[in-house]
């Protein structure tokens, strides 16, 4: 594939502009967060073109943004953020949320120290692998009737907590308290229900994972303490989404929204950017269905965490109180949200698409739990399974990105290239030499997810902290990994 040769103008050390003049139809500039070294990589695929394409969405305000973990997606780039002005006919695009609606991560603390974990690590990883359903077509623990399923789509995490999967206080530490208001379960097709059936409480496959990690570096002691974290402490990170239900919701609306382009006289450069005004009948229907899928995803992660807590209790023979497995936070990184921002001196209601980007609210934001008022929102950034992951916190400066930041390391190699690079090697063996135990249900998952397939998360975090849109709290290194 030839390099992308469009204009990337340096704004400062961490920001690069694709000017509106680059392409007919762009309504705003594109801005990519990256350093000098990364921006070279950005040119190697079509991600920058996708930033320009997104700039053509009706009603888009300020900029079409991309976080430093930007890579080539379909329609939107992964790492893309775009906000549209609802009153000005701003649109919502199912492709701007993606198939895995409310794919996200949660981080759970424990009272365990690395030294206590080490002798039981193998037992723990095996038990997690055995107890937590993962892989293509796996079935989950929760069986619900269709009527109950509709309730689950409205109540999200609360529904599963009420049914014994976790604690009330878990809700406090979940984005949107685990249930975004305004879900419309009757806008979810029968097919989506069918695909989501039996999948509540399943991890999924591919890059979805469960990791046992240890904190190896603290950058902000005060924030870390507020989150209940210290050096040498063991944490659990969990990455999953809305499974088949969300995929089918996106599928249904991506298809039907192509008709909206003609109906609302919208011109976008690619069918996968199909969209409709947020305030149109179609826009409202999608938003209601998307929220339902998002709530399903929160319920799913809540259920997975509950299963994992049970495994820890069994393996370590400790009570929940002694283990101290409190949820630190749960964030969505594939979602569209209706949020208020000041644009050109006026308060506006915007539809913020985060496609592989994390919401990062600043200190004293009204939506934050009381305990995190001073620190800002915890932002969970998974890296690859061989290096590190980060816990960051939101900042006031991130208003320029509609309080959004990166969501991970970002892929560097395609899956096929990663499999090729790993041929004849044992990835599990290589990681074990580094003290990391890995298990996976997918045959090729470990090669596809090999550390070298990803950008170095340290560099990604350098950019978001350097640009001021997040601050570092602590770094974790993986010890046990279960991949889907």
């Amino acid at each position, binding site marked *: *594939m030839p390099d992308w040769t469009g204009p990337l103008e340096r704004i400062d050390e961490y920001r690069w502009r694709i000017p509106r003049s680059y392409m007919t139809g762009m309504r705003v500039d594109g801005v990519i967060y990256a350093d000098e070294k990364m921006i070279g990589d950005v040119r190697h*695929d079509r*991600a920058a073109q996708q930033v320009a394409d997104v700039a053509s969405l009706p009603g888009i305000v300020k900029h079409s943004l991309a976080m430093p973990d930007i*890579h*080539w*997606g*379909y*329609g939107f780039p*992964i790492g893309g953020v775009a906000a549209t002005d609802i009153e000005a006919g701003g649109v919502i695009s199912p*492709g701007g949320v*993606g*198939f*895995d609606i409310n794919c996200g991560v949660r981080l759970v603390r424990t009272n365990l120290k690395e030294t206590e974990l080490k002798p039981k690590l193998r037992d723990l990883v095996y038990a997690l692998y055995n107890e937590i359903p993962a*892989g*293509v*077509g796996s079935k989950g623990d929760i069986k619900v009737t269709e009527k109950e399923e509709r309730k689950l789509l409205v109540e999200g995490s609360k529904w599963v907590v009420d049914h014994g999967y976790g604690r009330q206080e878990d809700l406090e530490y979940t984005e949107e308290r685990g249930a975004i208001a305004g879900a419309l379960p009757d806008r979810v097709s029968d*097919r989506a229900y*069918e*695909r989501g059936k039996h999948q509540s409480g399943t991890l*999924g*496959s*591919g890059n979805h994972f469960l990791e046992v990690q240890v904190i190896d570096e603290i950058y902000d002691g005060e924030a870390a303490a507020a989150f209940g974290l210290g050096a040498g402490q063991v944490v659990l990170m969990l990455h999953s989404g809305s499974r*088949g239900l969300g*995929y*089918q919701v*996106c*599928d249904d609306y*991506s*298809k039907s929204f*192509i008709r909206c382009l003609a109906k609302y006289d919208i011109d976008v450069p*690619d*069918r*996968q950017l*199909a969209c409709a005004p947020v305030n149109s009948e179609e826009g409202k229907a999608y938003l209601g269905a998307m929220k339902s899928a998002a709530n399903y995803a929160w319920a799913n992660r809540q259920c997975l965490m509950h299963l994992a807590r049970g495994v820890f209790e069994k393996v370590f023979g400790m009570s929940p109180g002694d283990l101290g497995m409190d949820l630190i936070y749960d964030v969505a990184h594939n979602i569209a949200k209706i949020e208020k921002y000041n644009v050109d001196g006026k308060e506006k209601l915007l539809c913020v698409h985060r496609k592989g980007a994390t919401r990062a609210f600043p200190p004293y934001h009204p939506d934050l739990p009381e305990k995190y008022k001073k620190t800002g929102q915890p932002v969970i950034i998974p890296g690859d399974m061989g290096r590190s992951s980060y816990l960051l916190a939101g900042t006031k400066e991130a208003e320029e990105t509609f309080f959004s930041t990166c969501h991970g390391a970002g*892929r*560097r*190699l*395609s*899956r*096929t*290239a990663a499999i090729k690079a790993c041929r004849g090697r044992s990835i599990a063996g290589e990681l074990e030499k580094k003290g990391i135990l890995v298990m996976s249900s*997918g*045959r*090729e998952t470990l090669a596809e997810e090999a550390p070298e397939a990803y950008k170095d998360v340290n560099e990604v975090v350098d950019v978001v902290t350097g640009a001021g849109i997040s601050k570092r709290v602590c770094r974790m290194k993986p010890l046990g990994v279960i991949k*889907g």
Partner: protein
Amino acid sequence: MEKRYEQFSHTADIGVRVFGNTLKELFENAAFAMFDILADLDGLKGEITQDFELTAPNYEELLISWLDELLYNFYSKKIIFYRFEVLELSEDMVRARAFGRSVSENRNRLKTEIKAATYYNLKIIKRDDYYEVDIIFDV
């Protein structure tokens, strides 16, 4: 054109370039490519046949509808399809038959979860004596 499809490098997802001597064959090979990524199809024979009839406004959208319909059937009815016959194809309608086996006795054949076929950059191209299309699957 002998080759049915080849994978190309796409950073986040899986891209395939599908070939067909006719448009019918292009649709068949696209379906084969998708299931070849999903599962190990080698040596699969028999037993389930399913008929499909789908409509869409143009060939491209019809192609994605066809793939998504098969994918939906894979996930909901748990059938791995391994052979496809497009019986009738026009710009707005496809009628086809697919042959498959149930997932239950072939669970160890499953490879990669495909979430959906996307519309990204979708364009069926007519070469001198064959057709070609690039499809990105979200995995």
